[in-house]
């Protein structure tokens, strides 16, 4: 039965530099396999929607402008996404990836989390088609648990 077994630890770290990472002032890189924000490169996508079908949180919507010459806009809800990378695993054409350096995604308003990927022209068309209010919370087409995410009032 010893007294104060943590004494050596406690005195040791009193004289050593603390292990604290001074985060906002010195920023350590996340490992390169870290699953941060989803990034979509429109180049090779053929609109198969396999990623949308298997997303557990219906965070991705592929809005097709015209299927023949592969014009798509992907609307990505960063706040619904659970960063599990199942879509990256499903996509055989490797046009989805997870950015390992984008993880400081905190925001003060919910609207800032909806991101539209695609060429400017396509995005303009999509935003014009959907009225701005609808753009924030459209009913997702993915196979959500109750056939469509709960469209918030």
């Amino acid at each position: 039965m010893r007294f104060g077994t943590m004494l050596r630890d406690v005195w040791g770290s009193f004289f050593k530099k603390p292990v604290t990472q001074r985060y906002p002032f010195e920023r350590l890189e996340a490992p390169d396999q870290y699953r941060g924000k989803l990034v979509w490169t429109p180049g090779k996508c053929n609109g198969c929607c396999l990623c949308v079908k298997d997303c557990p949180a219906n965070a991705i919507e592929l809005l097709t402008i015209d299927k023949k010459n592969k014009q798509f806009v992907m609307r990505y809800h960063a706040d619904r996404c659970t960063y599990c990378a199942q879509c990256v695993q499903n996509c055989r054409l490797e046009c989805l990836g997870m950015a390992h350096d984008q993880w400081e995604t905190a925001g003060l308003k919910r609207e800032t989390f909806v991101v539209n990927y695609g060429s400017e022209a396509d995005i303009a068309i999509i935003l014009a088609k959907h009225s701005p209010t609808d753009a924030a919370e459209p009913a997702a087409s993915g196979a959500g648990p109750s056939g469509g995410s709960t469209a918030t009032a």
Partner: protein
Amino acid sequence: MMSTDVALQQAESLLAGLGKGTAKPEPNRLDVVIEASDLIAATTALRGARWGYLATLTGVDLGKEANQIEALYHLCEGDAIVTLRVRVPRAGGAVPSVYALHPNAMFFERELMEMFGVTVTGLSDTSHFFLPDGWPDGTYPLLKDTDVQAAAKQVKGSEPPEPGRQGDRFIVPVGPQHPALKEPGHFEFAVDGELVTGATVRLGYVHRGIERACEQQNYTQNLYLTERVCGICSHSHANAYVNGVEKLAGVQATPRAQAIRQLVACLERIHSHYLWLGVAAYEAGFETLLMYSWRDREIVMDVLEQMTGNRVNYSASVLGGVKFDVTSAHAQAIRHGMDKIEERTRHYLHVVTSDTSFLSRARGIGVTSKEEADAMGLLGPTLRAAGVTRDVRVDAPYGSYKQFPVKAVVDSAGDLAARFKVRMEEALESVRVIRTILDGLPEGDLTVKMPRKIPAGETISRFEAPRGELFYYIKSNGTDKPERVKIRTPSICNWIFVLKKAVGAQMADVPPLLAGIDPCFSCNDRTIVINRPRHGRQVLTWEELRRQAITHTRR
């Protein structure tokens, strides 16, 4: 431990007269169809011969045409599983309660009642188990045809009862928000001065309706839903689910994938035990140990983040394999981390077993004997700290546990100090197994082609999570959506033990006692009302309680 076939034959002989028909769907499983009236006789026969423990009770809705609900009583002994199948009509079916034989049956029966509408006769408490207080009566969420969203809309505010002074009992609420609880659960301790005379718990604060959601999503989406049943043992839930679905689809993951899964499972056990060491010491008031054990836990978290891409929900497994590969750089980082962890774990083992001030708060708290622990159906390190060697990785090795065997860690003291010791030794054992896996990592690719539609069938998948045995029952119907997914988590069986030991303890010892079983509320979101020991309602007379308290403090 007798071999599986011997156990199954013994069970078959015990149930000879009662069963209407037996079947062996898998080499280690025996199904016996029995009448509701013979249920008590069957369980008494098995319990009399001390055959195994009641793992769980699963309800399955056989649909509108069959107009029947099937209640499956799963009993496990080592690798052998006996399932007693009882069919009851869909409306107004009744099943006798086996609570007297298996104390933990009480939770499963109340769940059956609440989710399927099967009345269980002889059950003393029938208040809501999972569901929120205001849930409309008569709607049973797990029946196929119930419109759950409409029922959810009807749930109005559940104004919590003001726990005033009930008679002479002074109620101390440890509410859903309390610094001792990292997760919401509502406890009410009837306190007399510092002595706890009664304890009730209402847990359903984390009930999200996962089993119902599993039936509406395809198998791939369910993988990530089951992984988020509990954040600390996420890999265990995902793996138990994946093992079950792969068994149903008749697909075998490649040896390298299975070895990587076991590697991540062992890393998760270390991080979970270090997390628990800090939180349990903090409950007892030893903040320095929290700071130091969580500082050292960061080593394992960095290794996991570097290898899998996320610190907590690794999403390592995919149906049919693993997502990432363990490169030599990862292996090097793991070995370096494990050396540091081993050295620190030995130090914490020394602190936990010899520090006078710590032991004054840990020794002799919630003492339980081997028979009492076994009778109450305890699971995991809490059970092994009482002397019963029951570990699914040893009894029924799955995946790559055959190539990289694990030794079960057992202690006999049965009190809180023993639980600290068992968990630290399990962390050391995990470090040893990780090194053997890294040395013998088999070559081969990572994933195997997996059909999207799983052929019809049902299976049971057991997995040893850091807190105890995890029990998954999955039934498929040939489509890409499962028919039924039953999740039974280890913490639920340990609740009855905590509340039984809380009665008569000091109020200051209750938080460490709660933390002692490493409860994972989100794992079980169950609730029980138990302020009387197992054999019926026992009102402790004041004299009895005083004697119990004096003997308790004199030790």
